[in-house]
């Protein structure tokens, strides 16, 4: 309850407003600028002579006859085969999210309902696994995967991403399951449900907020991953992020830079829309681990 004791001076309020505006500018302007620039030609967005060209669209007018052009998009999606990369991303994301939620809910439920010591140690082990840099794991995968000849295909990458994702999913869902009272399980068990039936019919229906949060984080990991997808997939199966990197080329002046700009926008837009809708879940997920755990 706010009794109005905390009086803020006008200067403090002004300072606060200015600070927030400056911060939001720093946080958002790069994205707005890239979005704007993706509708220009390269000579405007990466102008050697005058940065104002990016706004006045000097070269875009000369080259295409309009102030805005969608050439970069249409070329990247067709010639650059970005459609293939987005198709791969969708496949990887759907499978990673559903499999890791399935494994994660089972495991986290068991961890949250066990009173033994080993449950604690398993959680600590998961924390250690969470700390492993992904690239060190990839250096362990490459050789066995080459030998088994399962390198380069989507299923391998999906399984690897699921596994890498498990420690975080476990911790997150564990803290959510902890908030579901044990009495709920116990009454179901007394009524003759098996553990699995209790889990399936009693606990899962009240767990949806937690599952959605965990799903969002798995989705962001699978969608955003670069380290694993770049090294474990062959050229044909690349997802969006490694594809963007391949547009950059070894030297910045080769490669089609505007393709990269437009694909960055194409890849980021769905993510932003998703976050706009699920902002509350993401924030509750980030804090669940911190405050309760």
């Amino acid at each position, binding site marked *: 309850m*706010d009794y109005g*004791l905390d009086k803020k001076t006008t200067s403090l309020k002004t300072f*606060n407003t200015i*600070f*927030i505006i400056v*911060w*939001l500018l720093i*946080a*958002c302007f*790069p994205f707005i*600028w*890239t979005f704007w620039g993706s509708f220009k030609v390269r000579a405007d967005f*990466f*102008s050697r002579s005058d*940065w104002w060209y990016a706004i006045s669209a000097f070269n875009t007018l000369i080259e295409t006859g309009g102030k805005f052009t969608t050439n970069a998009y249409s070329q990247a999606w067709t010639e650059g085969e970005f459609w293939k990369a987005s198709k791969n991303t969708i496949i990887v994301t759907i499978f990673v999210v559903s499999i890791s939620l399935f*494994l*994660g809910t*089972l*495991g986290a439920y068991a961890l949250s309902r*066990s*009173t*033994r010591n080993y*449950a604690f140690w*398993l959680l600590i082990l998961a924390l*250690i*696994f969470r*700390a*492993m*840099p992904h*690239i*060190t*794991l990839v*250096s*362990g*995968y*490459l*050789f066995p995967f080459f030998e088994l000849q399962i390198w380069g295909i989507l299923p391998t990458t999906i399984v690897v991403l*699921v*596994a*890498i994702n*498990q420690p975080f999913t476990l911790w997150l869902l564990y803290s959510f399951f902890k908030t579901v009272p044990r009495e709920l399980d116990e009454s179901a068990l007394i009524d003759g449900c098996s*553990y699995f039936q209790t889990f399936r019919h009693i606990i899962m229906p009240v767990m949806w907020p937690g599952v959605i949060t965990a799903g969002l984080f798995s989705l962001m990991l699978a969608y*955003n*991953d*670069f*380290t694993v997808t770049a*090294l474990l997939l062959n050229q044909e199966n690349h997802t969006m992020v490694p594809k*963007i990197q391949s547009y950059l080329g070894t030297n910045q002046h080769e490669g089609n830079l505007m393709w*990269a700009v437009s694909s960055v926008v194409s*890849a980021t837009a769905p*993510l*932003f829309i998703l*976050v706009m809708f699920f902002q509350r879940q*993401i*924030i*509750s997920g*980030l*804090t669940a681990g*911190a*405050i309760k755990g």
Partner: protein
Amino acid sequence: MPNKTFFWFFLPTGLAMILFIGLPIISTGIQSFYAQHDQIVKEVKKCDPFGCTVSIVVDNEETSKIREAKPLGKFNGFGTYTDRNHLAVDEIKKFWNETESVSAFIDQVTNLPFYKALIFTLTYCLFVTPNVLLLGFIIALSLNAVARKIRGPLIFGTILPMIVTPLVGSLVLFWMIDSQGIIGANIQNLMNDPYLSLKSSKTLTWITIIIYGIWHHSPFAFVVFYAALQTVPQEPVEAAIIDGASRFQRIKHIVLPHIYPVVTFVALISLMDNFRVFEPIIGFSAEGSAQSLSWLIYDNLVNEEVILFGSAAATSIMTIVGIAILLAPVLIRTWKEFRIAR
């Protein structure tokens, strides 16, 4: 829950983690003791009317035969760990004996690839982590003071840098800061130096990557601190106001002690994440002047001729050791708390 039920519930996730996190670590360990085969050379005698010459060429057939027979490479023991590209034991001994002053010695050592990368990684962690905590806390405090109605969109704007993948985030910044981008071009005009660019200076590159790191990680600290601020009890704060405590005193003596556990959590997570810094180096195309441990591994793995499994694995193992050193204090504390709780 009975042990047996626990086992079946935990089996799928446990199996996934053992197979794809536990075993790869072991596999990395084994690989680090092997090195790729040397190329087998043979002497070829070429004769023409003017006489015979003997030249040495690579015997591709033999080389690929031995590679197929022993794909892991030849056993190298700790050889990879001590070679020039890793701990460089011999080189350091040589520098120690040859150089005259300590600063010259340090100069020489920090030019070796592994130490160069280690120093960049540590510098990055050292500068990014505290600034992330500070900036995140300030943003949380200041957003906590604005009207509740407009907080939603403000929070959305604030967390944008965090939700994009580091590669995209660094590219978006790089395209602005580069000499042909909006900020880079204007700085050139302002300083009146047409050759001033990110790539020309090592210090500038480091500063840019560190600023990028703060930009990318602060939203995470913000979100956690913001949620923690909601749980600060109002009564002590009000009592402090009546007692005449200033705003700064209230934060220092009431708010900070209350959210202290969360601060350590954020510090730990961002330290772990910063230690694996890698994608911004690719995004800023800064390979020339800034290399991190993770980037060294990546570089070995994308090597064009032969993938340097052994070298990558050795760097990986040393990175894991680094992570272990970072994590050790937390683990020891958790263990002590756990023993007391029992």
